[in-house]
C-alpha cells in the first residue's frame, strides 16, 4: 500500500490520473473501517485532508457550492438556512465524532444506498462537480448513483464539490433506524418544497439499490397543490392527497430484506415518513415559508 499526500487539488488530480485505482480518503469514516476489518487493501490511499479548498463552501444566489470534504458538523451548524434538508440529514450521521470527519464528498464516493446525504441532495436538486486532469463535469445527483456502492465517476475523477440548490422553501429529512442515535439508515426520506417553481422533490435512501426520487409522488403532489390552489392559499394538504403521496413514495421503493430491516417495513416506513415530512414542510410553508415565493 502506498500513501499519497497531495498538497493541492491539482496534485490530487495528477495523482488520481497516474493511479486510477487510488482510493481517496478524506474523513476516513468508510475507508478506514474497511481497512481495519481487512475488507479492502487498496494499492494506493489518496489523502485529501491537505487540500484546504475542499473544506470551504461558497453561497451563490441560487446554489451552494459545497466543498467535498466539508464535515457534516459544519453543515448542520452553518448551512441550516441554505441547505435545511442536508443540515437535518447531517445531524443524523453517525456520532459527533463521525460528523467532525465525514463529508458529503465521502458519502457520494462510497455511494452506499444508505448514505444520509443522498436523499436531501436529490430533494434539493444537486450536481456533483467531478474533476480530472481532463476537465470538469457536472453530474446531476439523479445520474450519479449507478448501483449499489457504484457511482458515475470515471476512474481518474475526484469529487471537487457539490452544487446544491439553495432552499426556496421548507425541507425535511427523516431516517429510520432501530436506535435513537448512531444508526445506519434502515430507510430515509427527504422532501423539499420548491414554491418558486411550484414543485416538490423527494429523495429516498436505503430502500432501493440506489438513492432514488419518488417522481410519481412528486408529480402527483405538485398537481394536487396546483389544482387546489394551495400554494396561494396555504390551505392544508387534504389527508387523501397526503395519503396518496405517501403511497406513491412507497411505490418508488425497491427494497430488500436484510439484517437491518424487511422490505415490507421499508416501504411502510417510507410512506409514513413521506406523509409526516409533507405535514411538517407544508406547516412551515403556511407559517411563513410562503415568503419564499417573492424571495
Amino acid at each position, binding site marked *: *500500500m*502506498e*500513501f499519497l*499526500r497531495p498538497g493541492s487539488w491539482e496534485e490530487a488530480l495528477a495523482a488520481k490520473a497516474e493511479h486510477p485505482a487510488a482510493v481517496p*480518503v478524506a*474523513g*476516513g*469514516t468508510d*475507508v*478506514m*473501517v474497511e*481497512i*481495519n*476489518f481487512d475488507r479492502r*487493501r487498496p494499492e494506493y*490511499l489518496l*489523502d485529501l*485532508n491537505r487540500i484546504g479548498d475542499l473544506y470551504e463552501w461558497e453561497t451563490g444566489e441560487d446554489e451552494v457550492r459545497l466543498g467535498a470534504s466539508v464535515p457534516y*458538523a459544519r453543515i448542520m451548524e452553518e448551512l441550516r438556512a441554505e441547505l435545511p434538508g442536508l443540515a437535518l440529514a447531517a445531524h443524523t450521521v*453517525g*456520532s*459527533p*465524532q*463521525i460528523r*467532525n*470527519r465525514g463529508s458529503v464528498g465521502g458519502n457520494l464516493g462510497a455511494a452506499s444506498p444508505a448514505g444520509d446525504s443522498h436523499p436531501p441532495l436529490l430533494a434539493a436538486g444537486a450536481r456533483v462537480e467531478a474533476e480530472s486532469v481532463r476537465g470538469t463535469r457536472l453530474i446531476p445527483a439523479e445520474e450519479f448513483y449507478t448501483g449499489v456502492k457504484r457511482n458515475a465517476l470515471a476512474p481518474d475523477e475526484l469529487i471537487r464539490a457539490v452544487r446544491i440548490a439553495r432552499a426556496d422553501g421548507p425541507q425535511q429529512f427523516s431516517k429510520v433506524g432501530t436506535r435513537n*442515535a*448512531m444508526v445506519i439508515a434502515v430507510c430515509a426520506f427527504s422532501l423539499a418544497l420548491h414554491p418558486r417553481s411550484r414543485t416538490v422533490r423527494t429523495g429516498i435512501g436505503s430502500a432501493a439499490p440506489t438513492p432514488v426520487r419518488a417522481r410519481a409522488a412528486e408529480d402527483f403532489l405538485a398537481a394536487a397543490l396546483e389544482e387546489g390552489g394551495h400554494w396561494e392559499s396555504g390551505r392544508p394538504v387534504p389527508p387523501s392527497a397526503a395519503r396518496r403521496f405517501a403511497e406513491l413514495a412507497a411505490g418508488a421503493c425497491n427494497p430488500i430484506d436484510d439484517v437491518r430491516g424487511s422490505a415490507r417495513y421499508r416501504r411502510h416506513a417510507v410512506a409514513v415518513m413521506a406523509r409526516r415530512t409533507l405535514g411538517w414542510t407544508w406547516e412551515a410553508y403556511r407559517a411563513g415559508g410562503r415568503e419564499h415565493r417573492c424571495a
Partner: protein
Amino acid sequence: MRVNFTVNGRPQQADDVWEGESLLYVLRERLGLPGSKNACEQGECGSCTVRLDGLPVCACLVAAGQAEGREVVTVEGLAEHARRRAAGDGTTARAPAGTSLDEARRWTPAPGGPGAQALSPVQQAFVDAGAVQCGFCTPGLLVAADELIERNPEPSDADIREALSGNLCRCTGYETILDAVRLAAARAGEAG
C-alpha cells in the same frame, strides 16, 4: 512511511508505519500511549476519541498519514489540556504531557493514587460520581465530555446525551456518566 505530529503538546515521530495503520494504532503501539482504546475500530463506540486539531474524532478512522503535522490530544494529555485552558493559555506549545510506557512503569504506589492532584475536573468527576466500572469506554468519554464542557459550560441533560451519543458504555447504563458530566460542569461553574 514516517509520520510526524504533535501529541499532547509534544512532537512525536513514528517510523516504519504501514500505510493502512490508523492514528489509533500509532498512538497505542508505536508511541506508547495506549490510553485511547480499541473497542470497535469502526467508529461506532467512541472509545478511541481524541482531539484532532481541537475536534473530537475517532482515532481508529484517521489514517496515520493523515495526522502528519497535526495536533492530537489524548486522554493522557487531558489534565494538562484542561490546566492550560483554565490558565487561559490557548496555545498548544510543548508541554510535558502524556505518560510514556517507561513513565508508567516507573510509577510506584502512593496514597491517593498516582497524580491524584493532577486530574482534570472531568476526570475527577468521573472518579467521584462512580462513572467508571470496567473503564474501557472512559478515555473516549472523558475526551468527549471535556470538549462538551469547553464548548458549552452549562449543558442540559439532552445536550450531554447528544454530545456523548457516539460513546458506548456497556457497564454503567450511563446514569453515573451523566452525573459525572453534570458534576464537572457544576464545579467548573463554581470555580469560574
